[in-house]
């Protein structure tokens, strides 16, 4: 027994010694900003990337022709200025003089041409290929001019080229063909952004250092580190104990305790890259059912009255208060409020009103004919019992589903709740349409075009349309906004589109969640928190923060 306690004793002493000897972040006087997040880039190769985390790093180590500001506008970056021809087809960019890649090579219009052609040539690039869909030719008449000709006018071209990070031709030309283009790891990450890649381990960390020669204002910190934490509680604990200086996300449940932690400030705001949660109705008409589709949606959901009644029976404020703990705003359309001018805030939403919901269903003949407490189809063939599914990895959906089941039951509608593995959910969703109601969501671009496209009938066979909605008027408006160069006109069309789908109630948008982030006040100062959108990990903050004196 003595032996055992000796061993345990040694163990404890060892642990305490080691615990005591750690501590000081980054010696040698360098200021190192440590960011904790739950993700990690999937690859440093911009062509092959799928995850939003990758794009956060690209924003720091690369530069594009234009920059997206936190107020939703586009500002000059590599391109000093640009002009558009009247037909919207020819875009001419003037490239900034004297820009160098991090390896010292000058960045010229040739690199821009190479990059654009490279992204366009690879169909297997998940996003980059889509951003170049309208490109016809790219030319460099001289070292500082890029002439981009499009096949169709693109009013949202800025929102696409903002993601086309300019790559050095002298490095990438050896990896430009075939499979090699995706498999090139790009660990050196030679770019022209405000930061330079120092060290990277997938799933562990990204270590960047400041680019002192950056052509705009260079960063004020020496190094930035992104450390991956695979669970959110650890992330919260990391900032509480001062092991990181900023965290990009946290569970809403942690906000209250973290607000009381010394030297920590919690900030919330509309996210830069919003993830929209939506309640999706299967409205697929039999004639629109795709070839492989099962199309087993409940017939009542194809009736606009039922969907509107369900919208009346949805208490969005309660959902915000309970599901998001108040950290959000009631939702309205699939285009979130953080998309600024594109968000149609003038739409009058269906208020929470169970009496109206019940009256609408009564009037439309959905009565409880068999007296079991659940309404039935007007012909009595089946009851208004809907399957409600959601992805099992969603943190908000389970509670959202329960609350929906409660208020919808008050309108005489029964829900059968079941969480599914996201992959299994994909396979019943679309283009199979083997569901009634789904809680899911979309990630969004700064431009609404992609989000609007999921409600067009063109996307029914591709599986992008989750509702099976087919409205020729909507489709026509979608095509029109795609080529309308005048921003005011385009905004009017997009607002009209949101009105149409809101009135048809093919989606109920329960809420828009806020981004919740936190930083330590005793380490760095200058975080940008007063803009319309919140993203402390964005380059806008990282180039201005400086160590606390």
């Amino acid at each position, binding site marked *: 027994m003595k032996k055992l306690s000796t061993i345990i004793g040694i163990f404890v002493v060892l642990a305490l010694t080691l615990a005591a000897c750690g501590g000081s972040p980054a010696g040698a006087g360098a200021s190192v900003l440590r960011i904790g997040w739950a993700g990690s880039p999937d690859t440093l190769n911009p062509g092959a990337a799928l995850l939003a985390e990758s794009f956060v790093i690209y924003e720091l180590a690369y530069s594009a022709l234009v920059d997206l500001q936190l107020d939703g506008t586009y500002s000059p970056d590599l391109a000093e200025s640009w002009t558009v021809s009247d037909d919207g087809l020819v875009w001419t960019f003037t490239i900034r003089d004297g820009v160098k890649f991090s390896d010292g090579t000058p960045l010229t219009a040739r690199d821009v041409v190479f990059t654009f052609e490279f992204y366009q040539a690879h169909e297997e*690039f*998940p996003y980059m290929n889509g951003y170049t869909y309208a490109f016809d030719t790219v030319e460099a008449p001289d070292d500082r001019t890029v002439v981009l000709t499009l096949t169709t006018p693109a009013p949202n071209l800025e929102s696409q080229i903002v993601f086309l990070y300019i790559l050095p031709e002298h490095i990438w030309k050896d990896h430009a063909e075939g499979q090699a283009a995706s498999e090139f790891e790009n660990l050196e990450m030679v770019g022209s952004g405000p930061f330079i890649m120092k060290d990277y381990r997938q*799933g*562990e960390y990204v270590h960047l250092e400041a680019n002192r020669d950056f052509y705009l204002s260079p960063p004020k910190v020496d190094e930035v580190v992104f450390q991956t*934490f695979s669970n959110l509680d650890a992330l919260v604990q990391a900032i509480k104990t001062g092991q990181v200086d900023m965290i990009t996300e946290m569970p809403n449940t942690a906000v209250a305790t973290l607000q009381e932690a010394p030297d920590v400030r919690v900030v919330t705001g509309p996210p830069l890259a919003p993830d929209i949660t939506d309640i999706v109705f299967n409205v697929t008409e039999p004639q629109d059912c795709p070839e492989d589709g099962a199309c087993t949606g409940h017939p009542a959901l194809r009736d606009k009255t039922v969907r509107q009644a369900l919208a009346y029976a949805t208490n969005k404020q309660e959902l915000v208060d309970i599901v998001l703990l108040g950290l959000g705003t009631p939702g309205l359309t699939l285009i979130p409020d953080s998309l600024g001018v594109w968000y149609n805030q003038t739409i009058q939403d269906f208020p929470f009103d169970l009496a109206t919901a019940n009256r609408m269903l009564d009037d439309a003949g959905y009565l409880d004919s068999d007296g079991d407490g659940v309404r039935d189809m007007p012909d009595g063939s089946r009851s208004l019992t809907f399957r409600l599914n959601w992805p099992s990895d969603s943190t908000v959906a389970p509670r959202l589903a329960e609350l929906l089941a409660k208020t919808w039951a008050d309108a005489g509608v029964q829900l059968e709740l079941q969480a599914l593995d996201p992959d299994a959910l994909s*396979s019943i969703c679309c283009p199979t349409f083997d569901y009634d109601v789904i809680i899911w969501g979309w990630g969004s671009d700064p431009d609404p075009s992609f989000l609007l496209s999921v409600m067009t009938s063109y996307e029914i066979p591709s*599986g992008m349309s989750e509702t099976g909605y087919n409205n020729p008027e909507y489709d026509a408006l979608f095509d029109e906004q795609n080529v309308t160069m005048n921003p005011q006109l385009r905004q009017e069309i997009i607002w009209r589109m949101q009105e149409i789908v809101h009135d048809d109630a093919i989606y109920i948008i329960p809420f828009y969640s806020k981004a919740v982030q936190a930083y330590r006040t005793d380490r760095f100062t200058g975080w940008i928190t007063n803009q319309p959108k919140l993203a402390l990990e964005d380059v806008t903050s990282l180039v201005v923060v400086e160590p606390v004196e």
Partner: protein
Amino acid sequence: MQRWSFLLNKLKWAVISILFVIVLNFFLFRILPGDPVRAGIRDPRLTAAAQEALRVKYGLDKPVINCFETLNPLRTGPCLINPLETQFFIYAGNLLKGELGISYHTNRPVASMLATYLWNTVLLIGFAEIFSIVLGITAGLVAAWKSRTAVDFGTLIFSLVAWSLPTFWLGIVLLFAGSTWLGLPVGGKFTIGQFYAGGGEKFLDLLRHLILPTITLTVVVMGEYMMIMRSTVLEVLSEDYILTAKAKGLSTFQILKDHALRNAMLPMVTIIALNLGFTVAGAIQIETVFSWPGLGLAIFEAVGRRDYPMLQGAFLLIAVSVIFANLIADLLYSYLDPRVQVG
């Protein structure tokens, strides 16, 4: 001579098991519904054309195996194609060349990713296993010798509690306690961005990061070892030869060391060998709690993303290590108990 045929026989079964695992691994993940191209990605920017191109890149456009499109018996694929152009035989062919494929998620070779992760996991499990074997066996032995005393009851209660603790719960509790009061790191392998004056400092930093996950895993595993060791030793101590040893006037230490321990080690070797496989599963939880970049965390993420090459590679690796751990246990048996090889 007999020893050699015993060894060969065991080796033969190990190889057969591995072949079986290779086939099972391949089909297991493809039975699951869904699509690696869309798994986890909900972004309208990922167009249908891009998805198709990704499918071609991953080789998922090819039939899984002749006559089966998926393993769904209702959907049959073409039967008269060249078997070498089916996903299964391409996989098998690459495996023969020693290639585990390219991860769908990171576009990197699976083999090199696994090598990094495996080393990290071995580091974590290695320390914890050594501690728990030493502590577990010692405590079990002592408890059995001092049976029905306070020491015994204390050990028994401790091991029961430790064995039944949910791993992730213990991990989270230790994480909070350790980082708040001892200033221990909450996750990762090194303090990222730290400037090290030398290799020694870096090693100390690694040890600091190992403390909490190692304690968690040690506590969880050691409970089981204590329990089993205690009951086995109790059984052995009731044998006649222990009485004989006592009668010969041997000291307590000699009896325990030379008579009880060696006989009680037989079941322990089985448990430890079997456990090595389960520890990787246990490590999934610990690695997730402590953000430890090991095999368990990699598997956890690969499942969510339907990263078939990564999953196949990782499961093959685990299967091979479990099979070899058992093979070694078998060989140790014949060393500990010479009667085994005859049977």
